[in-house]
């Protein structure tokens, strides 16, 4: 692999915007024949978006794509597949009730007239399986397969279509360590054959192990390209999380008080019924912000959901100001005064098709102040919501504005107004500024600091290390459901945190 070679795929000046977020901004990316190139970056850095553009799943707003030297207009995945680009996404596109062979020939022209030609398809499949060591029973129904096997089917699907470029989106996230070793063998044998692999990941160890070259993305831009032989984990960690501090926040000196949030021995399963939190123990004190760094998918979602009452943990206790929560009950969490900022404000936090006011009163619409005998007291409700809209300077056409018409920053302000308006004892904020512009981000940071000064404890779960360092009093890292360490911010180094985040302890 040399850079003097002609690239097999070349993307130039790619820009892609979603509503109010710029996911890719003026990105140049080249892929050379026979190389494994890692796309490294935090969640939301734009890796998957960029590759979705190369796979024709999204169309870019600006920029050009060349595949094998020819300009390519990709408006659907089939355009990409016909040019030899295949992608194995994080969520597999398989039909569970059909066999492996049936899944593989879907969408190919394998057949004579009306009938499918299983015989020659099977011969071709077996040949590919042998060559790359991808052992799966062609007649097994997909639902009976493990996740690792299903991934093999996806790779076989791509190879059956004879792709020269295979994009793997965080393939190891769903694999057991032994399966990862197997996958790496397959990918290396593909590269040896002259095919190219794009490996999307945020795990530094893996990237160093598998890739020939690394392209680092941050905030939708390419920040660096390195050969793996000429870099090291430490440098990559720095590049990935960035050094520049966003803003200088004024943090008043306050002494942490008694514990307000105590988590003991908390274990929870994720949606796939795998253990996502493994006996977690955590304390947040009054007047203190505990920043929890870590790459998402390591149990953050499960932890916040367990705290919010949206997930029933398998064991453990959670106490707020010494009172035990009834686990899995949002009502109990609200009663004990937890301010909750969920990471998916659109799916969990807000009712986008209702008005701003209807969102603001969600948690206290049934209090004696706002209703009598089941009838809503709109006079008081209007007063309440207008006060909050003013206090949090929510920009909208008024309390009756449909929530979905608000910008991302204002949506989050609605969220904050509802959750912080009632003077919470503890605030749990999960990715509170993800996808927001700098102005909104700053506002939200100030609000969080304000809560700390007013005597609340704050658990800040974030992937944004700048945010963690700017706000926290203590920093902890969650990796694969386990706390990697806990360090006061004054003694914390970015290198150390970056290494903890990728599972390296020292």
């Amino acid at each position: 692999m040399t850079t003097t070679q002609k690239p097999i795929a070349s993307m130039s000046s790619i820009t892609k915007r979603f509503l109010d977020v710029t996911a890719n901004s003026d990105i140049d990316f080249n892929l050379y024949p026979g190389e494994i190139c890692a796309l490294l970056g935090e969640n939301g850095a734009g890796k998957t978006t960029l590759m979705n553009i190369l796979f024709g799943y999204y169309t870019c707003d600006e920029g050009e794509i060349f595949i094998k030297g020819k300009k390519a207009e990709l408006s659907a995945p089939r355009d990409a597949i016909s040019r030899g680009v295949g992608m194995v996404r994080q969520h597999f596109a398989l039909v569970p009730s059909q066999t492996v062979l049936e899944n593989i020939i879907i969408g190919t022209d394998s057949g004579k007239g009306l009938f499918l030609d299983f015989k020659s398809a099977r011969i071709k499949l077996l040949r590919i399986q042998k060559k790359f060591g991808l052992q799966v029973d062609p007649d097994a129904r997909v639902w009976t397969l493990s996740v690792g096997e299903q991934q093999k089917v996806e790779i076989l699907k791509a190879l059956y279509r004879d792709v020269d470029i295979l994009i793997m989106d965080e393939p190891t996230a769903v694999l057991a360590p032994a399966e990862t070793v197997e996958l790496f063998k397959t990918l290396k044998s593909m590269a040896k054959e002259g095919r190219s692999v794009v490996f999307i990941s945020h795990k530094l160890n893996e990237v160093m192990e598998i890739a020939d070259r690394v392209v680092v993305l941050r905030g939708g831009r390419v920040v660096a390209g390195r050969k793996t032989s000429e870099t090291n984990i430490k440098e990559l960690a720095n590049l990935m999380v960035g050094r520049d501090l966003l803003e200088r926040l004024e943090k008043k000196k306050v002494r942490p008080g008694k514990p307000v949030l105590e988590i003991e021995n908390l274990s929870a399963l994720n949606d796939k019924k795998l253990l996502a939190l493994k006996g977690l123990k955590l304390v947040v004190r009054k007047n203190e912000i505990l920043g929890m760094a870590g790459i998402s998918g390591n149990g953050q979602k499960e932890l916040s959901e367990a705290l919010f009452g949206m997930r029933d943990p398998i064991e453990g206790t959670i106490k707020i100001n010494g009172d035990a929560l009834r686990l899995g009950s949002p009502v109990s969490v609200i009663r004990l005064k937890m301010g909750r900022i969920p990471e998916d404000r659109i799916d969990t936090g807000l009712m986008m098709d209702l008005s701003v006011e209807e969102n603001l009163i969600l948690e206290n619409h049934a209090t004696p102040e706002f209703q009598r005998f089941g009838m809503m007291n709109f006079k008081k409700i209007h007063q309440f919501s207008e006060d909050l809209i003013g206090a949090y300077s929510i920009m909208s056409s008024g309390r009756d504005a449909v929530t979905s018409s608000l910008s991302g920053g204002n949506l989050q302000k609605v969220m904050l107004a509802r959750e912080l308006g009632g003077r919470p004892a503890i605030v749990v904020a999960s990715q509170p500024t993800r996808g927001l512009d700098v102005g909104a981000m700053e506002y939200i940071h100030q609000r969080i600091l304000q809560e700390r000064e007013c005597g609340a404890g704050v658990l800040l779960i974030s992937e944004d290390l700048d945010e963690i360092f700017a706000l926290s009093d203590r920093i902890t890292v969650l990796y694969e459901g386990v706390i990697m360490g806990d360090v006061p911010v004054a003694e914390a180094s970015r290198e150390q945190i970056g290494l903890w985040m990728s599972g390296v302890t020292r």
Partner: protein
Amino acid sequence: MIRMRITKREPLPKWARVVIPIAAIITTLILSAIPILLAGGNLWKSYYYLFYGALGTRFNLLETFVKASPLLLTGLAVAFAFRAKFWNIGAEGQLLAGALAATVLGVSLGGIPGVLVLPVIIIGGFLAGGIWAAIPAILKTKLKVDDVVSTLLLNYVMIHMMGALLFGPLQQPGSSWPRSSAIIEAARYPILLTKSRFHLGILIALLAVLVIWFINKRTVFGYRSKAVGVNIRAAQFGGINTTAVILWTALVSGGLAGLAGVGELCALQYRLIMDISPGYGYSGIVIAMLGNLHPVGVLFSSLFFSVIIVGAHTMSRMTGVPTYIAEVIQGMALMIMLIFLLFTEYRIRVVRK
């Protein structure tokens, strides 16, 4: 090459919610010309008798209200359920459950004071329909059984159960037909206007519009059911007991459909027969959609439907166009409304390349 893409559009202003159903109805009436012409009818004559038959005389006008009352109740039932995203396709079965309960009570309540008979029957019919709807609601909330399927299939369970009863314990002694004995005099809905069939049930249906409007607009329950319908996860996050909301919604929804059954039985038939409902429960779905799930919208769309149904009879008599045209028009109204609603949420963008 030209490709079409469907993209989400900005929320429409409030007036659109009034204009769109009206536009849908006008479009339907225009497009109805096609089947009318195909059936060999004279176009203007057919339209004239369609409306004359429904609105032209005092009796016809009141008859249109008689027809509208079960449609209004089933329409409200469906609209109330759909608002909370409880997909109640079972208003037909709930209507029959109400009629069945009214029959059992209406035949056997001879012993209690006359003034109490009707209140007992009305409450009984409401509860019967409500409980029949609560079954799929419990299945949905506790076992995640799809409500579209369970509510729909329970219609057939109810129809056949009713058939078994009408050939068995409920059959009129001495009759060989599947029909029950007549209900007692005190169980009949009073007629409110002379020389017509304008009965108490119509008043009940109109009252139901007001009550549902009030619940939706003013009460804590209305707020909660809306929240559950819009985003059940966010509602749960906010501390709303979503299971209870869905159960109560089902109970009220089924109860309204049950009242439609009570009305048909106690005001028109006076005894239970197999075809007590020509599919009012299913029409209720169309009416709810056409009324945009709003109680006042449902009021107007049920009136529109009954105009078509009642008018089609006169049209058929005067022009020879078969009465089935009414069903064609109803079907078209639903499809056109759904298409119109689709375009209120999405727009088609043509991409040239």
